């Protein structure tokens, strides 16, 4: 493997984990990133990282239950073998991060402390204050620096990935990229390429994501022929603080540590929140979801907050939709120890101390469950085959996708504190497979004919030159971006309607056409951020169009994708017998819908038509059979009763089929 190299694009948790594991396996790695890797978006993750652990085990928790919560929370849209492998790796991942020096919070006895997160009843979440992502990222950054010092890793920071380079068989043999300082465009031969470039929140204008999260790298792979899965599934986080430049996340851990969401029962009650007595406060999540309370899965909390403000008119403020997230009943010392990081953010940016005053929050675009389609090799025990070069490989051989930019693990809705796990897990798990791929190769990429690399380089140089030569005074990239964000936020976030989606498809198409006439306000050849931004804007359109088309076609409600016209409301019957009858019909309809829509959308970019061709892929649900997602639904008891009878009948119909959960 001495002459072979792997190119890792993106230096967040996933990219760094893959880099350090590959280096340990003896592989030479080039690591490319828009920013110094220590400044990657993973630093924004706050609340923690999940795994079954010694404390939850005592209460009956298992890795299997973590898998079950993950797929139930994700509305069964994820392939279960990768989700299973991830859940079973959870404890190992956290142990490793502990050994790498992550300053996880401790119990009084010195064990790792845990807190509860949404969509589970167990305290699975390990945390380092409220800056867990930052702490985990730094630990991996340090390890990669160690390998850099040892000469196994070469970093290319402030470089923009422009495209994968494919040989005449369509196999990925390197990347074209641009130095953001000198603007030099260069080809890098690579024997495998791993894309770990995160989500695409900037398609929505403002989100909780960092400025690097344009989705352009994934889009460039997609436009080069890689398939893109479940684009329509975007998580809108329930609790963020709106700002002019960004919507700042207020971690789910605030609720995990006892934070309560409420609004005054009297619309826009002018009293200060402290003066409003308990009986005049509407703790709507606790009232509507007695089991999970404030810790229902994110898609549900988001819809409820949206509903309270938009449909019920109970927003705390009249001209700005928001609800209270209240921590003021918790002691200062405990808040500082466990949530200091996020409280400082609120205090700095809002000028209000959240230990004294309830925070005002509203949902914001937060995470892409969808992403580049990736493969896996299923093992006999229902997980993934360790060391298989197929794991995490995109539809382009030799090109891998890991972390937020792949479409696995989270289905239709991600559970809080599962993303840090999926990022580190995919990085660590894919590395041996990539190393095995290198072992099997006969020819080194760097020895391929030079024209492959020169050709790719000069194509991108021409594109750059064409952009710089455009006449001044045409479309403005920054304004187009703002318009795109407005259209996408209105049509494709919390509530989706086909008339609005269809309208948005036309509008985005028009914006896409206009973007072809973007002219630059900077035509220089040195640190030209204007041309870099313009390119990333152009590449947002294929993803935006795919997302809208996927959402338009999916006529159902599943996880974060909510279309009220296709919702399955709760039961209305007054007597139990009536409700049982209704529940039978409800379950019939659920089964029909499952047959029709328990499928991932898999898109291929059609450049000629400038739109996505979408196919649908069956989901591997061989481990946990899909069941209705009933958090807080009226009539849940009866539906559950009918459903379990049907499930038992099916079980009996297949004699000898072992129940994998026992």
């Amino acid at each position: 493997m001495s002459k072979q190299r792997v190119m890792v694009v993106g230096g967040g948790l996933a990219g760094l984990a893959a880099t350090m594991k590959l280096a340990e396996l003896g592989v030479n790695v080039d690591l490319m990133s828009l920013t110094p890797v220590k400044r990657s978006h993973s630093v924004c993750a706050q609340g923690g990282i999940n795994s079954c652990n010694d404390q939850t085990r005592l209460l009956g928790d298992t890795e299997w239950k973590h898998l079950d919560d993950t797929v139930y929370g994700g509305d069964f849209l994820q392939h279960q073998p990768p989700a299973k492998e991830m859940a079973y790796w959870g404890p190992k991942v956290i142990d490793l991060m502990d050994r790498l020096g992550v300053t996880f919070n401790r119990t009084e006895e010195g064990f790792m402390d845990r807190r509860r997160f949404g969509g589970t009843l167990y305290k699975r979440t390990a945390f380092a204050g409220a800056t867990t992502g930052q702490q985990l990222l730094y630990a991996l950054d340090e390890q990669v620096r160690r390998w850099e010092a040892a000469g196994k890793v070469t970093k290319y920071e402030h470089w923009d990935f422009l495209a994968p380079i494919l040989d005449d068989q369509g196999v990925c043999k390197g990347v074209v990229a641009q130095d953001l300082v000198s603007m030099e465009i260069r080809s890098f031969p690579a024997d495998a390429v791993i894309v770990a470039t995160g989500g695409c929140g900037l398609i929505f204008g403002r989100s909780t994501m960092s400025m690097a999260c344009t989705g352009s790298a994934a889009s460039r792979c997609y436009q080069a022929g890689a398939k893109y899965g479940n684009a329509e599934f975007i998580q809108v986080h329930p609790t963020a603080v709106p700002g002019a430049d960004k919507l700042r996340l207020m971690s789910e851990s605030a609720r995990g540590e006892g934070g309560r969401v409420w609004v005054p029962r009297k619309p826009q009650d002018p009293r200060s929140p402290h003066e409003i007595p308990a009986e005049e406060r509407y703790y709507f999540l606790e009232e509507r979801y007695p089991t999970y309370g404030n810790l229902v899965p994110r898609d549900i909390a988001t819809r409820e907050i949206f509903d309270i403000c938009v449909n019920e008119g109970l927003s705390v403020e009249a001209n700005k939709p928001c609800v209270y997230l209240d921590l003021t009943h918790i002691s200062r010392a405990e808040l500082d120890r466990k949530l200091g990081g996020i409280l400082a953010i609120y205090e700095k940016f809002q000028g209000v101390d959240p230990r004294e005053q309830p925070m005002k929050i509203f949902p914001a675009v937060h995470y892409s469950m969808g992403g580049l389609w990736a493969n896996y090799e299923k093992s006999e025990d229902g997980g993934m085959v360790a060391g298989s070069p197929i794991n995490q490989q995109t539809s382009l051989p030799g090109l891998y996708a890991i972390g937020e930019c792949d479409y696995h693990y989270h289905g239709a809705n991600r559970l809080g504190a599962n993303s840090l796990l999926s990022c580190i897990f995919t990085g660590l798990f894919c590395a041996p497979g990539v190393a095995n791929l290198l072992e099997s190769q006969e020819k080194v990429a760097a020895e391929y004919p030079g024209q492959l690399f020169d050709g790719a380089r000069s194509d991108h140089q021409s594109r750059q030159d064409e952009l710089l030569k455009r006449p001044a005074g045409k479309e403005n990239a920054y304004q187009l971006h703002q318009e795109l964000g407005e259209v996408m936020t209105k049509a494709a976030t919390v509530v989706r309607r086909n008339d609005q989606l269809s309208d948005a498809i036309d509008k985005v198409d028009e914006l896409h056409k206009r973007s072809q006439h973007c002219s630059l306000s900077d035509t220089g050849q040195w640190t030209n951020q204007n041309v870099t931004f313009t390119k990333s804007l152009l590449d947002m359109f294929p993803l935006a169009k795919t997302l809208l088309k996927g959402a338009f076609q999916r006529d159902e409600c599943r996880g974060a994708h909510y279309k009220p016209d296709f919702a399955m409301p709760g039961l209305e019957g007054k007597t139990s017998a009536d409700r049982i009858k209704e529940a039978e019909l409800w379950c019939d309809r659920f089964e029909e819908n499952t047959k029709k829509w328990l499928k991932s959308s898999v898109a291929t970019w059609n450049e000629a038509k400038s739109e996505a061709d979408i196919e649908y892929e069956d989901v591997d649900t061989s481990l946990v059979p899909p069941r209705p997602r009933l958090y807080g639904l009226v009539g849940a008891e009866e539906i559950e009763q009918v459903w379990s009878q049907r499930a038992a009948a099916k079980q009996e119909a297949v004699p000898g089929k072992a129940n994998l959960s026992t």
Partner: protein
Amino acid sequence: MSNHSSTTKRKTFAVRVLRKDSPESESYWERHDVEYEPDMNIISVLQKIASKGESSSGKKIAPVAWDCNCLEEVCGACTMVVNGKTRQACSSLIDRLLEESPSEIVLSPMSKFPVVRDLVVDRKRIFHNLKKVKAWVPVDTYSDMGPGPKQSRQQQEEAYPLSECMSCGCCLEACPQYLKIEVTRKNGETDEAFEQRQKEAYDKGFIGANTISQVVLFNNNPTGQMNAKERTDAIMQEGGIQICGNAQNCVAVCPKEIPLTTSIAKAGRAATIRGLQRIFDK
């Protein structure tokens, strides 16, 4: 609630930016009149300037170049000098700044790092120094070996603030002993040769408070302390802890309020002990 009645009536405010087109070119000031909106920060001001594409005199201009990423003061990218004080652009709120200085807001790049363009500076030296002191836990393997050593709550509470350092450079900008090192590429010099010369130059300069604090973090980690000597040796070389003049500016400007001077004192004691040890080891 914060109430900025004095500023809410404003229509526009002035922003002066110290620009520089490239490392070789001269710096120049440029003035912008920016439309006031509530809840603005320096990032949204720079975004507006980029979107508008002209200065206050109506001249067409290239957008100001600046670094940023997270916009919530955890990534460390957007450090610059705002109204004479080094800080993160994202958490520099316009209402607050206009209270400090109602006539104008002044933006300039950090002075202790080479300017790449406008407000973008080259902070490679920070990361080079982290390498120099081996700021990591040298584990044997990334394979599953069970959990790390048990740690008390007190140990965690001492380590956590130090591990929040985001390598933003504020402490270095404020330090009188930390001086700018700018190496210019010679004609025809290869990347490798240039980088080598850069590293040699960095090694002669002061390592700075942030690096010293990282040494304390890793030397107190139960596994990291096994090679504490190596790290302490690294901060006793040329440009090491002895350069610190105890001005205490670092701790005053740190956006994360990291107890940098406490770290320097701890590292100083360790260095003294190590110095004596070296004499007896001879």
